[in-house]
């Protein structure tokens, strides 16, 4: 396992970023970095600004101030649809699947940026489009196998149970072949066994595909067991960072977030 190495360039570097919504400062002067092949967690109380930080990193919202550097490139100039092209994949806290599509279709949309054929070719659907579509299907089937959702393949996602949908979200993010994966409370709504599955997937994603992972999680077991490093947000600002053990012992984190019986 390759833990951050000082000379390596970070996959992601967030520098003094803030985001305001009207009067609310949802994110306040936050800086963080994710090194290659690292699993980093972002934790904090409800409404601390974690999801908003994800929204800034994945280009859903523009920051009010500060810089976000992804693999050496300032993302300020990118259009929001370019982030996926650059290799940032994410899942959504409140599920944002394409409800009327099947699981396979959702995953194929995840591969959107990898298609090269033109619109005109699409209308004819012969030659290159066919080849690319076949190739895409192959990749998608591999992800389905990897996530063990074969039996859901042709179901419409609106018919899936909550936890199943979360898995499809993960698959869709993976289909994009990202270099940085943002997971927003992916294990919420899963039981222990399923959490273990997701934990296993997350480790495999990092170890086998070499993808860096930044995750938001309220489940302390998952955070403690998987993360290389942890950042803690409260009221939009960073209040602590470090290894899981360091953070778990931090009195500020205990007071604001974990509570006394932190060692569940």
């Amino acid at each position: 396992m390759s833990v951050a190495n000082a000379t390596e360039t970070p996959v992601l570097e967030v520098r003094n970023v803030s985001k305001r919504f009207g009067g609310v400062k949802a994110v306040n002067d936050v800086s963080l970095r994710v090194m290659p092949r690292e699993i980093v967690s972002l934790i904090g109380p409800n409404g601390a600004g974690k999801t908003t930080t994800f929204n800034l990193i994945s280009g859903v919202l523009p920051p009010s101030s500060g810089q976000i550097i992804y693999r050496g490139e300032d993302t300020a100039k990118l259009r929001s649809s370019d982030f996926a092209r650059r290799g940032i994949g994410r899942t959504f806290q409140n599920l944002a699947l394409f409800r009327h599509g099947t699981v396979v279709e959702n995953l194929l949309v995840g591969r959107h940026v990898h298609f090269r054929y033109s619109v005109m070719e699409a209308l004819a659907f012969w030659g290159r489009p066919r080849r690319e579509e076949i190739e895409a299907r192959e990749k998608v089937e591999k992800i389905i196998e990897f996530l063990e959702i074969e039996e859901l393949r042709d179901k419409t996602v609106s018919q899936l149970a909550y936890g199943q949908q979360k898995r499809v979200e993960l698959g869709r993010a993976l289909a994009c072949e990202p270099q940085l994966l943002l997971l927003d409370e992916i294990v919420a709504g899963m039981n222990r066994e399923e959490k273990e599955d997701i934990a296993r997937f997350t480790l495999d994603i990092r170890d086998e595909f070499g993808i860096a992972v930044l995750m938001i999680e309220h489940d302390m077991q998952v955070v403690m067991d998987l993360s290389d490093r942890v950042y803690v947000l409260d009221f939009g600002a960073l209040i602590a960072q470090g290894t899981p053990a360091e953070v778990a012992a931090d009195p500020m984190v205990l007071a604001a977030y974990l509570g006394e019986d932190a060692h569940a």
Partner: protein
Amino acid sequence: MTSIPTAVADTPALAVHNIQVVYGGAIEAVRDVSLEVRAGQIVALLGSNGAGKSTVLKAVSGVLDAEDGEIDKGSIQLFGRAIEKDAAPEIVRQGMVQVPEGRRLFATLTVEDNLLAGAHLRSRSELAAAKEYVFKLFPRLVDKRSTVAGYLSGGEQQMVAIGRALMSAPKLLALDEPSLGLAPLVVAEIFNSIRQLRDQSGLTILLVEQNASRALAICDYAYIMENGRVVLDGTGEQLRRNADVREFYLGLSSKQGRTHMKDVKHYKRRKRWLS
């Protein structure tokens, strides 16, 4: 609210007998499930994703029709009265309210209006006190009372969803994963409140939860569902001692306490429950 006459105290607050639920005329999501919730008890319903827990809750609240589902067989009694054919508002009037899965707030309404909508069946004079109660339970919402609910963070939304259901002063509260997306500190508070609601107001609670250790700690009785069936039931204490439950729901190995997530074996496959 506790004044359930002793004569009928023996009939459970909610009784589900052998129901079968079918979606779209073809997908059988729940098979032959029976369960009982006695007045003043907390009953937990556990199970993996897709086991059919939410479906059971939808069935007892009368909202299956919205998803093209129907109760094919079996019966449901709420306070001794058959409700399997009743529409949702009627069931609420009988005293059962559900906090639906995935929050489902009225996104365009403010937090306060969401709470008001929850109190639709109550008289005007009770509103202020009910709102106070919710704001005391979730102080985080006080600042946000006039924020449009759609803009709240996930956890804040969950708080509103629970608060909204409490506004109707139900006799029986059905909660679908109330701790979903809440910070540990808040989760602890929620479970405390749930316990308090039962102890102090005598509220009956049906709880679907993934946080098995907490759920089993506070419940009086629990059912475990797999693949649309109830496969195990017992008091919280009994289940916590069950080896399978310990391994699959609590993450405790028989030897050295909690298993580390990283140590989970790749070849481990989900165990099929017998029966």
